[in-house]
């Protein structure tokens, strides 16, 4: 099947109007020496054939029940209200481009303004952009901003920050002359006293994740104070759901808050598209990467919205732009705005409380099993690391046979954590589903 409406008659009429006798005449500027493509790809499929084929592929993926998924590690199963999916599937939003013509894009623009506002409310930060690609590249952008802002050339990243985020920062900063220096996280979190020695007058930023990659809470207030004593910025990588109960980055002095917005009403999608969150102090506004929507007036004095501060961006500033980003994740930002609107003030807090309670219940039950213990001593939100009596990879295989997606084997991040298993429980897990999980784990260990 194809989607080209040009009939043989159209073609005839059009070629005549153009004044050529064949299509070939239109592409005479293509040198004859360049060969015409003869693609060796499978034949076209009709809609029923395509659905059958893709349905078969989709059917070969397993462990899709969110209630039987105890895997987080940067991407989380939460309940997505129907209303989110409904709004994000509307063609008026879905099939529009970046809102360059503001007068014909007020719907998108107001929704993005609302997204920015909601992100500021949950993070306690002054300003936000209307999204970057995903959490890891959002962090890389934040590090570039910090180096530009401070004129310094060293970024200190806690080793408790998600490894893929650290790797992404390395990639982005590789050619920039900015050094990425690891900040020790000895017992699952940064030790502020040890950190103090590492922050110096050439440090552009201290990067910490809260809750961190192992699920632990970090001593963010101490880290904020010691970063600022040396004139460095504090960049906090947040999990937005946790901010229903945890102190927001704006309240502990973070200069930039970035994070993965996937938990805000976005499907898992095997890793993307996700939602890069970026919020900061207002003093940094003119160095922010990405699109920003502002409220203004039209020529009759009516309220309206438009893309603003565009002189930061690549299409105007070119090589001197604050970032190369053009496409963002507007659709996921829209989903997040609907999601936060659906939960509202009380719902958002309750959601975080449920995550906290379910994860602790799950931890308590699992650690009743002989030989299972919690690895790190600190507090956690909805994710925690356990030391298992067997190799978690093996355990996961057993669980998969029951349709359960077990936790993340931590040895993939740190060889020392050979039997480490990172688990997460959210509001989506009923007590029964947790009990069942614990039962199956216990049985598998026998």
């Amino acid at each position, binding site marked *: 099947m194809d989607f080209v409406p040009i009939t043989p008659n159209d073609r005839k009429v059009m070629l005549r109007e153009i004044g050529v006798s064949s299509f070939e005449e239109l592409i005479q500027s293509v040198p004859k020496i360049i060969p015409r*493509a003869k693609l060796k790809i499978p034949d076209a499929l009709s809609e029923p054939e395509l659905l059958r084929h893709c349905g078969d592929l989709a059917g070969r993926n397993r462990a899709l029940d969110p209630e039987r998924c105890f895997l987080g590690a940067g991407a989380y199963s939460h309940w997505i209200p129907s209303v989110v999916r409904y709004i994000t599937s509307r063609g008026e939003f879905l099939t529009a481009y970046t809102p360059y013509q503001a007068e014909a894009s007020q719907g998108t623009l107001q929704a993005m303004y609302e997204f920015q506002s909601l992100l500021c409310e949950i993070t306690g930060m002054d300003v936000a952009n209307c999204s970057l690609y995903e959490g890891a590249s959002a962090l890389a952008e934040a590090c570039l901003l910090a180096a530009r802002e401070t004129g310094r050339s060293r970024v200190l990243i806690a080793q408790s920050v998600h490894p893929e985020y650290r790797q992404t920062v390395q990639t982005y900063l590789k050619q920039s002359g900015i050094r990425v220096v690891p900040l020790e996280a000895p017992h699952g979190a940064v030790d502020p006293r040890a950190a103090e020695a590492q922050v110096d007058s050439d440090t552009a930023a201290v990067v910490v994740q809260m809750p961190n990659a192992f699920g632990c809470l970090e001593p963010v207030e101490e880290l904020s104070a010691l970063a600022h004593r040396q004139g460095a910025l504090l960049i906090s990588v947040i999990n937005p759901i946790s901010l229903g109960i945890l102190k927001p980055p704006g309240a502990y002095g973070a200069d930039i808050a970035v994070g993965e917005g996937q938990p805000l009403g976005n499907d898992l999608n*095997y890793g993307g598209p996700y939602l890069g969150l970026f919020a900061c102090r207002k003093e940094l506004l003119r160095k922010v990467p990405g699109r920003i929507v502002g409220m203004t007036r039209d020529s009759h004095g009516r309220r309206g919205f438009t893309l603003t501060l565009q002189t930061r961006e690549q299409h105007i500033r070119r090589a001197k732009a604050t970032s190369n980003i053009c496409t963002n994740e507007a659709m996921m930002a829209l989903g997040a705005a609907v999601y936060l609107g659906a939960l509202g003030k009380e719902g958002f807090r309750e959601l975080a409380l449920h995550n906290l309670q379910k994860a602790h219940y799950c931890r308590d039950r699992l650690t009743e099993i002989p030989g299972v213990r919690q690895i790190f001593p600190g507090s956690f939100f909805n994710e925690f690391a356990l030391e298992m009596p067997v190799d978690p990879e093996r355990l996961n295989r057993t669980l998969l046979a029951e349709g359960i997606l077990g936790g993340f084997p931590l040895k993939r991040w740190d060889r020392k954590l050979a039997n480490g298993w990172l688990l997460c429980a959210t509001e989506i897990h009923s007590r029964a589903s947790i009990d069942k999980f614990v039962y199956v784990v216990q049985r598998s260990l026998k």
Partner: protein
Amino acid sequence: MTPQSSEISRPSGLEMTPRPPHSPGRVLEPLMKELSEPGRRAFTLPALDVPKQKPEDLLPPSLIRKEPAPLPELSERDLVKHFMRLAHLNFSGETNFYPLGSCTMKYNPKVNEEIAGLPGFSKLHPYASEEASQGILQLLFESERLFREILGMDAVTLQPAAGAQGELTALLMAAAFHEAKGKPRRKVVVPDSAHGTNPASAAIAGFEVVEVKSNSRGRVSLSALAEAVDDQVALFMMTNPNTLGLFEEEVLEVAALVHEKGGLMYLDGANMNALLGLLRPGDMGFDMVHVNIHKTFSIPHGSGGPGGGPVGIKAALKPFLPGPIVIEKEGVYRLESPGPLSIGRVRSFTGNVGATVRAYAYIRSLGAEGLRRVSEGAILNANYLKALLRDVLPMAVDEHCMHEFIATAKDLKARHGIKAMDIAKRLLDYGFYAPTICFPLIVEEALMVEPSETESRQTLEQFAEALKRITQEAREIPSKVQMAPHRMPVARLDEVQAAREPNLRW
């Protein structure tokens, strides 16, 4: 209710319907915050069924949030009304002709949405074991193969989240390529007609950007390029067809020149819709290319994102690919970490997989013949529309175009004070989204028109007719065009105020 609510003008929901002039102070649709009423909510959690513990017993009190985030409180009905009314304020690819040059706003097939929404794809965790994700790994593996064949390249990474990230990925690979040869190179050359992302990406990748002038026919000037390219040039970033919608006839000579100095040839594939199934970048001297799957490969752009920016490369660049890489062995698919020369990853997880699923479905539904019909249709539609406009607006370069063309309002500006921007705004009144304006930078008062292959002849004729009427208006009642739009939900917006006194949140 909020004080403004009695003054709210209710949009009819149809973008084309003329609306009465609004008086100052009115709002089209209140903000969520203005609709908020304490105690309302649109979503309820199940009752907590585990023993309730006090948060203070589980968390350090100093790390507990003091006040709940002041999020708006709405019923589900009000929430849907709010967002649907916002939806109705938008033009979209689905509801309007959207000839936004360089953006390829083609029709987004609905079956692809259905496929991407299958639980087997949408509910799959990125760290699900390989055993649990054979279907998606096969799809990614096959997608890489398809892109390789379509682009004439030896390998493809699907990791970049968008075109600009694809550019950055390729630039970092180019830097690593030269470094591995023991001869790091500092410069990247771009034409003056290049997309802004090219120099911006090059700067992040640590390169010095050298711009070369185009010749009088809108192409890269070989002589200017010969002067710019030396043994410090890592890469020449070319767009072909270029941003004027013209095929770079001397692309092979350009490639020979760049290669002779040891540089790499990069294709910004934003305009790949003109080549699809017809010509392959790998057959015209390019070593690297990115494509924008939200343009050429029909995934909906979602008001600005998501996108996807796969990068294709020739064999010599393989060691530098970002990871993880999908491999196949005896029918089993695995994710493999890249080798020691890899540039590393450019994002978390494996990429915008949901977008790749749609692009895969698109390619499979078209096949080789269907892909060629895309580029032929895009080229035919663009030339037809250009022909219809021959007595309406002058063209930047008057010859057959590829998938898009640039008209200019230079004369209208000189004679009647009508700028490209004015024409763009007036087009909205006629129910058409505007072409890209003021780009490429080398054309004065540019209107960059890209109709795409999915528009019918009748739509193109209506658009041409509208432009004809607008140029007439420009001559007869210029103020009508200068003050446009008149039928949009809002009149022209004050962008200066927006930037001077930023109001970016409630």
